[in-house]
């Protein structure tokens, strides 16, 4: 149970009120072409009831980061520290991690069809976190039905007896969320939970996650490739590219006063439903680099319209530039900070 005694490892002094504190997280996978650094020195905090967005394209390391937060990446390839309520998940014993997962920290996967067991009823699967913790069967089932109702499944008592194939994509995603919430976690990590869903269903899932943080004090880390979705939900956003943090700030800072060329490019290339229709959408040339073939210097330099010679050789540190309000990993952050958001 969540109330059991925790080994009280001394938390780093800078944690403050953070419930989750990630420092210098690096995940390196071995491959035939040499080690691939999927996540490269990530540091961030999550406070109780906070809604943090992590945005990135394919290969940015956002999903590997999410997996690392649950201790799902191989330990021998993961360095740094992930301190959850005073306990380092990267050194905690495996059975301790099992006790935390699905209970104190839970995860909503991207693909609800492959994450659900086709041979078991929805009700059984939602109740499973409780059954694993020896909650009596009847009670577990009752709470599963209640939770299905909470996430907006109509007629939950009847639908609990259905199998995953009898549910639509949006309903399956809500089942995943019900599974993630039934243990009353304090931290939910949602990896692209609304990708492939219709926009109206997507809006409902967003509302549900919002309600969780607002009414139940749960913290949510929402991982996505879509800056549109984060705008209404997130309070703070981390922009990832090639395994690194490019920019980190409050949501309003990011959307209205970004000082990183990648973020600016992403915002500019989004098709919008209001405002003038441009002749051509502004694009970021090229594509995100494969983690196995990262460019030298700043990983974004081959696609950057503000590139300078030193960008090709010097990896930019993530820091608040003079005159800026928030950290940006760009050698020209100071120049951009003089005209925040103007270049969109």
């Amino acid at each position, binding site marked *: 149970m969540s109330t059991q005694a925790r080994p009280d490892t001394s938390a780093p002094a800078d944690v403050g009120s953070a419930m989750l504190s990630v420092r210098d997280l690096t995940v390196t996978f071995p491959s035939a072409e040499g080690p691939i650094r999927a996540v490269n020195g990530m540091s961030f905090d999550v406070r109780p009831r906070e809604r943090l967005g992590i945005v990135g394209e394919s290969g940015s390391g956002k999903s590997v980061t999410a997996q690392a937060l649950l201790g799902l990446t191989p330990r021998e390839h993961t360095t740094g520290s992930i301190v959850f309520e005073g306990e380092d998940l990267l050194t905690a014993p495996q059975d301790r991690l099992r006790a935390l997962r699905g209970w104190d920290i839970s995860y909503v996967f991207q693909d609800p069809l492959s994450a659900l067991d086709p041979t078991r009823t929805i009700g059984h699967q939602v109740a499973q976190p409780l059954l694993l913790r020896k909650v009596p069967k009847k009670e577990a089932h009752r709470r599963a039905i209640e939770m299905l*109702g909470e996430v907006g499944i109509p007629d939950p008592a009847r639908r609990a007896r259905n199998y995953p194939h009898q549910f639509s994509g949006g309903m399956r995603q809500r089942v995943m969320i019900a599974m993630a919430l039934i243990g009353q976690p304090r931290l939910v990590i949602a990896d692209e939970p609304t990708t492939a869903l219709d926009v109206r269903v997507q809006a409902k899932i967003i*509302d549900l996650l919002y309600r969780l943080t607002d009414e139940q004090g749960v913290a949510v880390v929402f991982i996505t490739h879509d800056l549109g979705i984060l705008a209404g939900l997130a309070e703070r956003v981390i922009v990832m590219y090639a395994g690194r943090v490019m920019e980190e700030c409050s949501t309003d800072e990011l959307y209205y006063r970004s000082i990183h060329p990648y973020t600016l490019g992403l915002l500019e290339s989004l098709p919008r439903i*209001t405002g003038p229709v441009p002749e051509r959408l502004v694009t970021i040339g090229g*594509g995100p680099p494969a983690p196995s073939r990262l460019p030298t210097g700043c990983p974004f330099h081959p696609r950057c319209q503000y590139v300078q010679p030193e960008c090709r050789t010097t990896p930019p540190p993530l820091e608040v530039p003079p005159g800026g309000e928030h950290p940006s990993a760009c050698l020209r952050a100071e120049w951009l900070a003089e005209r925040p958001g103007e270049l969109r």
Partner: protein
Amino acid sequence: MTTPLLQVRGLVREFGHGPGLVRAVDDVSFDVMPGEALGLVGESGSGKSTTARCVLRLIEPTAGEVRLDGQDMLALKGPALRRLRSTAQLVFQDPYSSLNPRMTVADIIAEGIRIHRPRESSSTVQDEVVELLELVGLRPDHLTRKPAAFSGGERQRIGIARALALKPKLLVCDEPVASLDVSIQAQILNLFAELMDRLDLTLVYIAHDLSTVRHLCGRIAVMQDGTIREIGTREQIYEDPQHEYTRALMAAVPEPDPRSERAKLTARRSAQPTGASRP
């Protein structure tokens, strides 16, 4: 007065039978004029993809009429149907499953030409393939590679080159950017606009959200439950939507603007009582 390139009248497609009968497409009619881009927008299950596949006769409609380039698409068969089919080509949603992983890019693009013009010399085919590759922004040295060597965006360009190989007048695109990275989506949308200009193409563009079609399509049809709820020009649909469903779809599109998104979220929350579990 120009005649439409594509005329669809009373299109119906049913699946199943007896009590399980479903009308996926239920009396759909629309015209597509030469050179225009029509957006077909709807959520999953709205019948938009089934409509597109009926138009190309990849699945047989249960009833209705489809006229492509002045000819009755549903009455033709054999060689005459095959000839007409080169007039309209499809770009698929998933650039991973729609390319044969064992074929080289050159073979994938040339396949249609070889089928439709079997007596063409291989050097002519080769020239055309190179030209197509350049048209979609790929390099000639990509020709001998297989799909696995390409990213999602590049694969989608290969799929577009393949669709263009038979010099179609109409391109039907089924959510061609849905599975691509955001920064790549804009590139592909621009490519479609450019190709329409250069090749006098006509487009039927299927999407599940209203934001991508807005850039490309001058006219938009909104589908729900197998029927067209509303069809109109871009200005009509976005500035003065008539149907409640169009308005609901529009309101749900997330925009990269925190202030307006938070306002929408608050509005949704006050419209729905919170916390209560449903019966």
